[in-house]
């Protein structure tokens, strides 16, 4: 029982880690980024290249790829999203536009990765060592995803709720139309939220590449999983993404252990439907 709970939390850590970035991009920057998973894959390949080509430990690669993820997302927002943000009459229109643009972006990123790395399965071994956690053996690399999710989640929540800048982010998330009345530069805030989201995606990619096999075209799997977690947790809520990710991990593990591993996907969507029926805005979502 405790064993399954721990395994579930470790699995959920991965889900939470990839979802936190998307919740910032979708909830605050209002960009429904369909290329989110592909950003994760870019970081996976980046880690793989640094590790196999330059013998750089993936944990140190974080310090290279997370700022790179931030910079790349900043550039994407500045050059591609900003024109959309400026011409969109309201946030709903922006969401539709951003879906179309990022759908295209997804194929651009995939295409580049295919040209550079080919379509092969990529995987390597790092930190694949057992760690004893309350009597349960877990893989150190998987555990690092949970730890990173909790640490980054805690930092983000602190920033969002305890700093002036975080308050601005929340204001934009809650009322993008009214925020300018208080002197908030909504586009600028959105740009930073999008970039931080990209940095989080990169951190997820670095960690995930240590234990999961990836291909140039596997990004959509991560986008889908992250989207489920984001909607379940309430869009824009970092705490929601964290909790929803962990819940999904635990549910999947319990279903695999006590019912059938074949039903994990069904269980995920059952939880998804159930929670949305009771709380249409997600666990910690505010308004529609």
């Amino acid at each position, binding site marked *: 029982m405790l064993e399954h709970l721990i395994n579930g939390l470790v699995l959920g850590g991965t889900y939470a880690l990839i979802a936190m970035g998307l919740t910032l991009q979708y909830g605050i920057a209002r960009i429904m980024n369909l290329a989110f998973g592909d950003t994760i894959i870019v970081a996976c390949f980046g880690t793989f290249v640094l590790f196999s080509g330059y013998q750089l430990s993936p944990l140190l690669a974080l310090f290279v790829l997370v700022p790179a993820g931030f910079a790349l997302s900043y550039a994407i927002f500045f050059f591609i999203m900003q024109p959309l943000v400026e011409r969109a009459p309201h946030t709903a229109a922006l969401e539709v536009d951003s879906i179309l643009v990022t759908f295209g972006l997804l194929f651009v990123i*995939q295409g580049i990765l295919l040209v550079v790395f080919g379509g092969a*399965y990529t995987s*390597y071994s790092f930190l*694949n060592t057992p760690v004893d956690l309350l009597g349960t053996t*877990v893989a150190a690399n998987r555990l690092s995803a949970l730890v990173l999710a909790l640490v980054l989640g805690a930092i983000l929540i602190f920033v969002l709720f305890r700093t002036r800048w975080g308050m601005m982010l929340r204001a934009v998330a809650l009322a993008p139309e009214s925020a300018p009345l208080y002197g908030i530069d909504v586009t600028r805030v959105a740009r930073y939220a999008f970039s931080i989201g990209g940095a989080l995606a990169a951190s997820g990619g670095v960690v995930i590449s240590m*234990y*999961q096999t990836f291909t140039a075209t596997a990004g959509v799997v991560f986008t889908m999983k992250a989207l489920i977690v984001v909607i379940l947790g309430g869009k824009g809520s970092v705490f929601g993404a964290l909790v929803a990710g962990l819940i999904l991990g635990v549910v999947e*593990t319990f279903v695999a252990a006590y019912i059938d*591993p074949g039903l*994990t996907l069904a269980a995920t969507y059952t939880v998804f439907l159930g929670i949305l029926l009771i709380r249409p805005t997600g666990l910690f979502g505010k308004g529609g």
Partner: protein
Amino acid sequence: MQKNNHKVSGFVRRLGGVISAVAIAVSATAAFAAEDTITIGYAVSKSGPYAGGADMTVTPNYQLWVHEINEAGGLKLPGGRQLPIEVVEYDDRSSAEEVVRAVERLATQDKVDFILPPWGTGFNLAVAPLMAKFGYPHLAGAAVTDRASDFVKRWDTSFWFMGGGRDYTSALSEILLKAREEGKINDKVAMISVADGFGIDLAKAARPDLEAAGFEIAYDKAFPPATSDFATMLNEAEATGADSFIAFTYPPHTFGLTKQAKVANYNPPVLYLGVGAGFPVYPGIAGGPVDGVMSLGGVDPNSELNVAYRARHEAVVGRAPDYWGSVLIYASLEMLAQSIERVGLDRAAVTAELSGGSFETVLGTTKLENNQLRNIWWTGQWQDGQFVAVAPTDRKGAATPMLPKADW
């Protein structure tokens, strides 16, 4: 001035390039009209979830084969004439509709001389009716099916090169039975499989074989293809006390299972994994020796033909082929080339030649039985850093299975 000159010469060079490109295009069209090339078309998954499999087993062998033929002056025709191969390639984006559309296009619009098959059992079944309808020989390479004999009746231009699920599972049961009789393993088996084509077929084939051999399948679960965490399944399998763990999986699962088994220090005497365990990158992904791990396929490391093939593959493609399907697919292409050499470009004659002829390939002298290749290694095992064939046990070159598996 110097700089300016440079610019001018650059421009001239580019202009020259354009002119020669146009010239080549024109001559290519002219060449086509006079049948100075043989066009070979194929649709494979270059993107989407099947890209990883196609990129390992299928596409590199097509490239290697075309490269070698063209290096040698082209495909030989009866009478000694040689024509270079021109390739028409499509990405099916891992979509069954797309692969069917592409094959139809290759047959009706591109009017290619021959069509090579896509990757995967499902996709080969999807295009089989079209290939038969348009009269193209269909060399289904990366397709595992127990119903090949039925399919040959239904689509008389189809050829099957990878055997059926039952072939692989009965070879495995034989090995397990022998190990049990020698007292190396108990009579319990834990089996997991991916809930997708390959996993479903192989698990279905394995159940009656294992039960007939007197094994109790103590754990038998299927999991969705998107599964990435195997901690729980391995724990449950281990808890049954089974000495044999069998997983019919795709590469991402195979790699994930291996890593988890290492972390959990799970060392069942028999560890049999699915696609991916026979990839040359497997020991690297596992991060250490993998001796004793079994899977489908295998090679005879002492076969000179095979060693030479692997060296050529590595030299041309830049990486080693897998230890299962690659060599079979390459052999099918060699058979196609030899058929064309004997009977020319008439597709019906080529089909008849493939069906009845005898060929010298990387597998040695090869002859199809009822349009199927049967000269296949069913089970392989990692021994001293090589994935060697261990079944069929009575075939020349088979190694002895080493059980129990060495600890991680």
